[in-house]
């Protein structure tokens, strides 16, 4: 049907007339997309008693859709279609062939008030329970592994390790170097006021090894690797690959979650040490710019940063690694089976990973203060 021709011809029109309890619908013109039908008379809800179609021109789905709405409103079991022209009647009959399933409409009604509060608090409680369950499962699986009852594929483990270790080096280098430089810049501005520029070395050193190195690495890995874990496992779930693992007698938890936890717990400390070194180099470069030679910077740094200080960040990174891996894997395993659900799982994984890293870090800050380290 050519709509460009239709636009020039008679406009679509529906005229409703009611007389002596009988409604008549007169349809005329070209009912094509782009022509707004002109409704006149008292439109009734439901099927008219008489339909006249003498002046009806060409039509596309606009007209059947309009009539179909009228038919649904009328709720008649056997509407009379005999007055319609053949082609229109054929289309209407096709649409009516399979009756509307009244129970197919989903009851996705928006809950309100108390009900919504109840649903939200129950969801919150369920999510706490599922986090605890997943962490518990992880611990049990690790124990199973060390007693030789859980296995996974070595090759897969190596490729995950490579991806979340060596693969992350470029981005960790860039971020750490910049963070080290920023710390030195900001520190120098303040310390120079007291003529104590040299202490910029201590500031950069302590800040990097205790907090910034491990923190920035953990946040990079949350976005990079935690998200990848969730997306990978989530799409395996969507593609029934996890079901396939189960029916071949593999424990999906051992095969998918364990290697990821191990890989991140091993790699995050290494990345943290690397990040500390690069960050200190960044600070050193800025310090050199304001007149502190690298040798002096290094000697001053060693007066405050000892092995105990340096080990704190690395110690924390073990826990951060486990938290990021668990957050990613958990969201992946619990993800729905549509592509939208996988996207949501990925988002939740990153949010959960970063949140848990920060919460753990504050807990460590309190503990280290109490222990006076």
């Amino acid at each position, binding site marked *: 049907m050519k709509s460009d021709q239709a636009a020039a011809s008679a406009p679509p029109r529906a005229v409703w007339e009611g007389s002596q309890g009988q409604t008549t619908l007169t349809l005329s013109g070209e009912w094509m997309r782009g022509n707004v039908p002109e409704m006149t008379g008292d439109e009734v809800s439901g099927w008219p008693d008489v339909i006249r179609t003498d002046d009806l021109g060409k039509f596309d789905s606009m007209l059947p859709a309009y009539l179909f709405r009228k038919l649904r409103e009328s709720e008649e079991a056997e509407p009379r279609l005999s007055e319609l022209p053949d082609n229109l009647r054929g289309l209407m009959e096709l649409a009516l062939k399979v009756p509307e399933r009244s129970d197919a409409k989903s009851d996705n009604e928006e809950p309100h008030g108390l009900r919504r509060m109840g649903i939200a608090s129950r969801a919150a409680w369920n999510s706490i329970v599922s986090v605890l369950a997943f962490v518990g499962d992880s611990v049990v699986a690790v124990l199973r592994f060390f007693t030789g009852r859980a296995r996974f594929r070595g090759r897969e483990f190596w490729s995950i390790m490579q991806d979340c270790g060596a693969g992350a080096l470029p981005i960790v280098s860039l971020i750490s170097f910049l963070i080290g430089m920023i710390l030195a810049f900001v520190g120098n501005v303040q310390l120079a006021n007291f003529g104590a520029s040299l202490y910029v070395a201590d500031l950069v050193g302590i800040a990097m090894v205790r907090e910034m190195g491990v923190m920035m690495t953990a946040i990079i890995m949350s976005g990079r690797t935690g998200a990848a874990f969730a997306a990978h496992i989530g799409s395996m779930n969507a593609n029934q690959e996890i079901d396939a693992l189960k029916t071949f007698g*593999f424990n999906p938890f051992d095969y998918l979650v364990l290697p990821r936890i191990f890989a991140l717990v091993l790699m995050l400390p290494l990345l943290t040490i690397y990040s500390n070194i690069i960050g200190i180099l960044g600070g050193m470069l800025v310090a050199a710019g304001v007149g502190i030679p690298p040798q002096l910077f290094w000697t001053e740094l060693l007066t405050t940063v000892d092995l105990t200080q340096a080990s704190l960040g690395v110690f924390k990174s073990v826990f951060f690694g486990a938290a990021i891996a668990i957050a990613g894997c958990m969201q992946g395993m619990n993800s729905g089976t549509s592509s939208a659900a996988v996207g949501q799982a990925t988002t939740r994984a990153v949010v959960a990973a970063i949140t848990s890293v920060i919460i753990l870090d504050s807990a460590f800050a309190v503990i280290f203060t109490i222990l006076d380290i």
Partner: protein
Amino acid sequence: MSEPDPNAKISVRGLTMAYGSFVVMEDLSFDVMEKDIFVIMGGSGCGKSTLMRHMIGLKEPAKGEIYYEGEDFTAKDAAGRLSFIRKFGVMYQSGALWSSMTLSENIAMPLEEHTDLSAGEIRDLAAYKLALVGLSGYEDYYPAQVSGGMNKRAGIARAMALDPEILFLDEPGAGLDPLSSRRLDELILRLRDSLGSTFVIVTHELASIFAIANNSIFLDTDTRKQGGTGDPKELRDQSDNEAVRVFLNRGESSGKEKES
């Protein structure tokens, strides 16, 4: 509720399937004999795949039991089910190949886990199973690199990896061209005859149903109960249930009405 048939390979008794409070199918009871090619049929969305998921233990029944060779499968815990699951081979609707592994590695993985074969023997077996489904030469391709139909066939090859006693196939013929679909039917018949496997197949392709199946169950969407069980050719001509006859005659007037 009747006792399970001791001679049957699979007996299902009074099975009710539900998602939460939404009942999918009620009170299903049927038997699958050894070497049967058993078809689960019914309209779209009537719970065919769900029934299969119950039979392989991926979903828990709301009510009822599933017996394998007289042993109650539903009563066992996850560990107890392992010995049953080792006898199963399952092909999922989309193939569900592990996407990070090549086709050959997909088939090798169950073999590595459950057998003591050497790497060379496993490679040979994987190549042979792929050749059986017409994928010779595709050993080193990843699932994403081959077509949907090939994924499906590779899924069947993987399901056969451990020479299972019972093969569950979820819509094996859907999305295949008529020739491949025909080849698949022949493959199923030949495997049944030579290996003595029992097949449980979810499908609604009539041509394929009449060509291979000797036993079946029809799931009726309207009543949410089983519409009939038995040989699909007999069901087509003699079933008491109108819905079954209409379905198996592709909506044309059914045999029983013509006779009477």
